[in-house]
């Protein structure tokens, strides 16, 4: 099973988990507002 990472929607602010493979670029969609402005939250 693919690894999951935490993402944040830059349109509506929703935070959610999505499959994530380092180095692989995939089309991602916010489950709340369908925006593609989805940014992976990085560990600080």
């Amino acid at each position, binding site marked *: 099973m693919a690894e999951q990472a935490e993402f944040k929607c*830059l*349109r509506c602010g929703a935070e959610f988990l999505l499959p994530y493979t380092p180095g692989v670029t995939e089309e991602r969609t916010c489950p709340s507002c369908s*925006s*593609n402005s989805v*940014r992976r939250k990085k560990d600080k």
Partner: protein
Amino acid sequence: MAYSEIENVTGYVGSFTVTVRKKARYVDVGECTACGDCEDVCPVTSPDEFEIGLSTRKAIYQPFPQAVPSAYVLNIDECLGNNPIACGKCLEACDKECINYDDEDELIDFEVGTIIVCVGMDVYDPTALDEFGYTRYENVITSMEFERLINSGGPTEGHLVKLTDGTQPKTVAFIQCVGSRDESRGNPYCSNFCCMNTVKDCLLIKDHYPDIDIKVFYIDIRAFGKGFEDLFQRSKDAGTVYIRGIPGEIEEDPDTGGLRLYVENTTDGGVERHDVDMVVLSIGAIPRRDSDVIQRLLTLQRSQDGFFLEAHPKLKPVDAATQGVFFAGCAESPKDIKDSVTQASAAVARANRLMMQGKVSVEAITSTVIPELCKSCGLCVKVCPYHAISCDTKAKAPAVVVEAACSGCGACSAECPFGAIVMKHFTDGQIEAQIDALLEHDAHDKVLAFACNWCSYSGGDLAGTNRFQYPANVRLIRTMCSGRVDKKFVLRAFAMGAPIVLVSGCHFTDCHYINAVRWTQRRVEKLWDELEKKGIRPERLQLEWISAAEGQRFATVMRAVEDLRRKVTAKEIEHTRKVLADVLAPVEV
């Protein structure tokens, strides 16, 4: 060329170089008369791949009776003659002396102008569907195995027999959609030909063995082609019973090898039990397992189901996105013989049209390198979806664009950190001049959107023609691909006072330039980080994928970004202007 594999492909439309590995056969094709003397004396026995393991072959064999050329081939990995304890019986038996253990693979280069990809398909392996007992019960076979059994050239010479005892079955059941139309345990798509293949098989059985009872378990029968409905009716008239429902379980009687199927008949909701002698699993098609190799060699796209993706589903259904490459048959999607022949004819015609012209017309919108500015970093080579750029980074030679292979996405130009690549008709200067003009007055009231020519911009057109309402303060800048949107364009827009910048392109599977859209996403993700570091909210840079058919979505996105724009304060804009002041440079057109 039989018994050969593609090793490498270089070049571009009109000038491909294809390297083919002609595998060693260890038999002289010119001399071999396929007499079979070598096969008779060969002591090695292996499962016959062509008969799907239903019979055996020798280490030296003819792959199948109609194989071209009609000559034997030696599997050197199985041959004892290649082992320390030498056998060499075939060598002794061959009067023509055409066996050579020292034969070697040969690499042959071909210069070709166009390439037709017709690599076919593989079939679904139903072993994972435990309820059907495939591989546990001998009398449960796949439709491919059934084809060999019923074939007069097959292992039983066309006699339909049970694999347990070699007797003729009295009842045969077909189960449809095995591994197809099942997202959780198979493939979500319909394999197109299985229904009619089963109908054909039922007619064949009834023709040869009228007394055999046949039951077909199905979800729905898709008899959509010319004459298909008639064939379906004929099979029903011949006595085939069609039952709507897929068995949930198969049990075997260990003594007789008989099979018991439990199924919910969805026409009346009742659970039924059927006793049969043989079950044929109608398995679906899957993309060839080695599709990755061809995809890499020819820079092809694949759809979500794994089959090769055509350049356009309606207007270019046999063309690949890579110029000069065409598809035929199941390489592109599962299809029956008639559709495969039709597509193959179309692919040949498309290829011929190019070849007959003798020259290739290329797009006027292509990239060119300014050698003086090029630092030979090779970034452009990495991002080019068409492998149209070459660069000798070790020799520090400037990159070279092959214009015949360039499709004009502009990803190279956007990625080049030295401004060494010029995208004709979409130069940096031209795009920057548009940004400046659009944001010259009342920048704080506007949303600046970069839209790709093929999808987002067309989505905007559709929104317009359908009269979908969206804010009038959106200003669009068209680029051929969202991959052309350079980081400096976005920063320039912010420096000019844009409250919100939107980058929009095609959905990943629709990208007109193979995978250039992926570079857009990577670039925007990096920009979000950069903006954050500069104290600018990353939310002000929006990214959206909008297809040409999504006029409604275009309008929705524009309304959403307008809502975001209203939340951007004058103070924020002013701060951004100050932070990015050095970005603004004189525009060169």
